[in-house]
């Protein structure tokens, strides 16, 4: 695995980690790629996520049956595949007279061991990308954002002062 390439890709995002929330990060990626990213929550079976790029948009499907932390990790993992160019071209035959080319990556890592060295490298790189992102998030004291659902950004936790224990 080329860790330098992955780190370079994360640093190349030019992202302000102090602003990190998952939706904000996804918006930033969409802005960089100049195309919308649609998140698709599904009860997936036998695979944990996938990313799909049509000519104009990106889609990330993730398994809502998994722990919320793992859902966030899956989103970062799938974003990695988009950024690192791991998707494979597929042709979709539409009613015989129209063919669309998509880019698709399916993550089955949790249920299968890959034998293909390319797939192994891509999965390792995507995992490393997600870990690097999570590391930056943690180092900017935004770790709690990796534990929240998309709709929990408004939750405000007041700083702990100990008042509740002293009764002051």
């Amino acid at each position: 695995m080329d860790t330098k390439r992955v780190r370079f890709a994360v640093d190349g995002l030019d992202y302000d980690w102090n602003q990190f929330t998952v939706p904000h990060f996804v918006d930033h990626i969409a802005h960089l790629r100049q195309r919308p990213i649609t998140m698709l929550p599904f009860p997936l079976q036998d695979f944990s996520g996938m990313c799909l790029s049509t000519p104009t948009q990106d889609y990330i499907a993730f398994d809502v049956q998994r722990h919320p932390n793992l859902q966030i990790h899956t989103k970062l993992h799938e974003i990695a595949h988009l950024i690192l160019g791991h998707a494979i071209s597929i042709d979709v035959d539409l009613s015989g007279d129209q063919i669309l080319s998509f880019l698709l990556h399916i993550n089955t890592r949790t249920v299968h061991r890959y034998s293909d060295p390319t797939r192994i490298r891509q999965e390792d790189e995507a995992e490393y990308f997600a870990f690097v992102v999570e590391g930056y998030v943690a180092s900017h004291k935004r770790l709690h954002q990796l534990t929240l659902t998309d709709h929990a950004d408004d939750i405000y936790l007041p700083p702990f002062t100990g008042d509740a224990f002293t009764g002051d």
Partner: protein
Amino acid sequence: MVDTPLAFSEILNLLFTHRTRTDGTAYRAADVARATGISPSQLSLLMSGQRQNTSLETARSIIGFFDVPMTVINATTTEQVVTLINEAKDNNLPVIHLRNDLSRDLSPRALRQIQEIIEWVLEKENAERTGQPIPPLPDLNNDS
């Protein structure tokens, strides 16, 4: 005379024989074990018939992997099982063919879900182009 359902081991072996990967090769017990969380030894006992009974939950997991209706456990003949398997194959959308290197590691159930997602994406983008309402997300939980 009342027909008795086939033994689960017979159904299981028919599933492995007739519900193959897109390249025609058979799934291995290890594939099912990893996807369902059922231990390989338990699968082996069930396939060999050394274990005749299993929980409904286990049966549902295994049959779900092959994306065949649960009614298959009530089949009384080999032909009925094969018919149900072939019907399940026909129900898998033929519009989108994933290359073997993409689909090889995927269960029939996963392939169906991916096809439904891709179809929804196609419908959504078509709706956006033509100003139609965005279609609702597909219900991927429609396992029988």
